[in-house]
């Protein structure tokens, strides 16, 4: 460890690498020493997964693992290449992303609107909040059979399920964020004679934004989960369809491929959300890249 440390030398906060390391493991407090430790830590933490992959490849190639149980990683990559070039992979991927985006927009919009309303108005809270909390008590995937009865297994069912999964985290974190806005700052706004519209724009929404973005990040995960389930139940296109279709023919390489793609997109969505946080919350000591 000590030789590693000295090879990094003393690093100032302004070097481009330092925030890059800090963002991977988000820490409120990050002094120079901590970052160096984190970088080494990140490098070390990759060893085990890579090793596992290598062992898997070796076992599969030597026939220790049946290809129908688990194909070799290299085989999955080859399948990806083939399907991407000649098959329906890109179209299926597009279909899935579109469903996720539509559900996210609808659910997020509804969650944000209701959350804002309830955050601001005691009356809206009295009218809306209890019902929302009661519906929220249902694990939304338990509604699946009912949703299929309502919508069949078409696009409606999938988008509805995703919206449902997204709306609650966004709703909760929006109301929470608005309520947590520092009353002293609201008072300041009043002293300065801000109109209600300006008060919302300059103080309430910026103050609630960290919480709202947390909700968005959480919602991304739920949206993805909802989509996987919805697509697996019944679909004529999309990643879930690809996987279920492959199951019929015991094409585990395709199944594994879809699983990997689901995972990759999940990771991608999450880093997108983090990027958004860093851009929008640059002022915040816990998120901002510093100046």
């Amino acid at each position: 460890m000590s030789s590693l440390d000295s090879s990094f030398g003393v690093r100032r906060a302004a070097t481009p690498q330092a925030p890059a390391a800090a963002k991977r493991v988000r820490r409120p407090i990050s002094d120079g020493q901590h970052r160096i430790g984190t970088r080494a830590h990140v490098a070390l933490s990759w060893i085990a997964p890579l090793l596992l992959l290598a062992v898997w490849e070796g076992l599969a190639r030597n026939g220790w693992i049946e290809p129908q149980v688990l194909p070799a990683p290299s085989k999955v990559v080859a399948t990806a290449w083939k399907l991407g070039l000649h098959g329906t992979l890109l179209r299926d991927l597009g279909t899935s992303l579109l469903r996720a985006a539509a559900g996210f927009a609808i659910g997020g919009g509804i969650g944000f609107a209701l959350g804002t309303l309830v955050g601001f108005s005691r009356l809206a809270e009295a009218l809306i909040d209890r019902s929302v909390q009661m519906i929220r008590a249902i694990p939304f995937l338990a509604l699946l059979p009912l949703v299929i009865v309502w919508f069949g297994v078409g696009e409606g069912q999938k988008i509805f399920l995703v919206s449902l999964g997204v709306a609650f985290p966004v709703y909760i974190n929006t109301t929470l964020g608005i309520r947590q806005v520092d009353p002293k700052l609201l008072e300041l706004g009043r002293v300065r004679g801000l109109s209600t519209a300006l008060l919302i724009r300059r103080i309430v929404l910026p103050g609630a934004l960290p919480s709202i973005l947390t909700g968005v990040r959480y919602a991304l995960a739920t949206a993805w989960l909802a989509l996987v389930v919805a697509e697996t139940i019944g679909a004529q296109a999309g990643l879930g369809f690809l996987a279920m279709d492959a199951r019929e023919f015991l094409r585990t390489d395709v199944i594994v491929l879809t699983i990997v793609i689901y995972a990759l997109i999940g990771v991608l969505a999450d880093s997108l959300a983090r990027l958004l946080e860093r851009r929008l919350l640059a002022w915040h000591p816990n998120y901002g890249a510093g100046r």
Partner: protein
Amino acid sequence: MSALHVPNADPAVTVTGLRRAYGRRVVIDALDLRIERGEFVALLGESGCGKTTLLRALAGLDPIQAGRIDAPGKPAVVFQEPRLLPWDSLWRNVSLGLPEHGAREAAAAALAEVGLGNRLDDWPRTLSGGQAQRVALARALVQEPELLLLDEPFAALDALTRIRMHGLVKELVARHRPGVLLVTHDVEEAIRLADRILVMRDGAIAAEHLPETAADPQRFRALLLAELGVQGSAAA
């Protein structure tokens, strides 16, 4: 109390018969107060006697139960904490509530006045406590208020910074000439800054002094402390 008043037809605020209660607990009752433009008034009083309550009423932050508050313009307030919006740059903080047009220029001028003219685009979190309170001061002055309300604005600062702030405030007030009401616990601060010192007790103004006319500073200080209910320190 009017005996001590220099007649002047230009009040920054006139308060008559003010009554302020929280529920059934009356904190301020039948309070009269007049502050002229350009006059610096310090308000002393024991903790919990209602100084902040009075200031909040003057700022229009709380409803009053009886009496009148006449102020020609919108008062500006500096609180004990800077209350800067952490998500806005310094100039956006200073110009909060100003019309967009010319806001940056006005904020730049105000920040320059408090010695932060080179930090327009910085985040508030990059400031020290004293710097943040200077921004709050700039934000108050950029309004060109007729009445400036200061609620223990220096209480959280270290002694050295506080002395610097005294100089700055005195200079800025002399230039902009608002009427000032400074709530403070610090007798020294009151003597150093104020044209007139009020002592509040039992929800009303109990005593009024002009520090300029005090013959013996030591005895004046002791008198103020005695009025604040601090015994024994009169001998020191």
